[in-house]
């Protein structure tokens, strides 16, 4: 081979590689969009969550309707379940459409399929593992209880876990440590919202302590703030 090269030239080429990587990632990323969109979707779910029915010792599982289960329908009616069934798939479709448009505008198309597939797959898993669906399929509902402990599913906010895990996949696809850190923190927040009356921490903001609606509001605002942060960072990078 007739190639000859010195250390200085090699160092220059490696520096060029880093510069081009950064330029391409800047053009490719539009992380703010799904964060803002899902922030609005999660906030949009809040009105469908109503305060816990208080009846002496606590709650009675109603298991209403065909889509209840882990989509928020066990205790508080079917409205959140129907909302999630429509809004979450639409959210992923809208994200894919936006990123396709963004790729056409910038000339750089990222890998969006793993994020959309993971988000929809996790959501489908939630739906299928709901007791009502298992029952309708003639499968023992204990499978769902094995997969999702009652403590985790009791507030009907489990779709937020699917959203958070989807963002972790997006962070991996985008090779974004910042989004990975945000998604991990968001996952922690939504696990807390599922396991605990998170409104207790936000009484100062006028949220109800014992209302699953508070969990949806806190998670939605967190996503909107995250989207705002990533949007500002992207503008500064240009």
């Amino acid at each position, binding site marked *: *081979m007739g190639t000859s*090269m010195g250390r200085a030239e*090699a160092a220059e080429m490696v520096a060029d*590689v880093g510069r*081009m990587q950064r330029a391409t990632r800047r053009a490719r990323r539009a992380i703010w969009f799904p964060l803002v969109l899902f922030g609005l979707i999660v906030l949009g779910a809040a009105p469908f969550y109503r305060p816990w029915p208080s009846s002496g010792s606590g709650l009675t599982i109603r298991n209403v309707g065909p889509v209840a289960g882990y989509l928020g329908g066990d205790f508080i009616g079917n409205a959140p379940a129907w909302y999630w069934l429509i809004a979450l798939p639409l959210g992923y479709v809208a994200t894919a459409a936006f990123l396709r448009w963004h790729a*056409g505008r910038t*000339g750089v*198309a990222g890998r969006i399929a793993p994020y959309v597939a993971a988000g929809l797959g996790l959501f489908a898993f939630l739906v299928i593992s709901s007791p009502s669906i298992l029952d309708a399929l003639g499968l023992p509902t204990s499978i769902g209880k094995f997969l999702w402990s009652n403590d985790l599913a009791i507030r009907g906010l489990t779709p937020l876990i699917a959203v958070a895990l989807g963002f972790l996949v997006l962070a991996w696809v985008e090779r974004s440590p910042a989004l990975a850190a945000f998604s991990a923190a968001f996952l922690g927040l939504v696990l807390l919202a599922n396991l605990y009356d998170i409104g207790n921490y936000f009484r100062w903001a006028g949220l109800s302590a014992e209302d699953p609606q508070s969990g949806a509001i806190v998670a939605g605002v967190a996503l909107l703030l995250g989207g705002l942060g990533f949007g500002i960072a992207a503008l500064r990078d240009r």
Partner: protein
Amino acid sequence: MSHPVQHLDEVVHQRNRLGILVVLREARQVEFRFLRDTLDLTDGNLSRHLHVLEDARYVAVEKGYEGRRPRTWVRITPAGRRALAAELDALRQLLR
């Protein structure tokens, strides 16, 4: 032990072609004009480099239309990824 320079691939070891592969590795596919602007090349120059890479089966080029606008999308192939990784390894070895 052989000198790292011996591991350099003539096709990839050219500043602009290396740049093309680096940009392509960062995305599923990249449009011709983004490559041209990022690498600061002319249309003709970029086309020549893409031909060399395509002949080596390191990239795949797809031409089409979006509305009335002609679009050329380029993506890196698995062989291109391997060649790029080997080139970057050799460059880093040179810096050690």
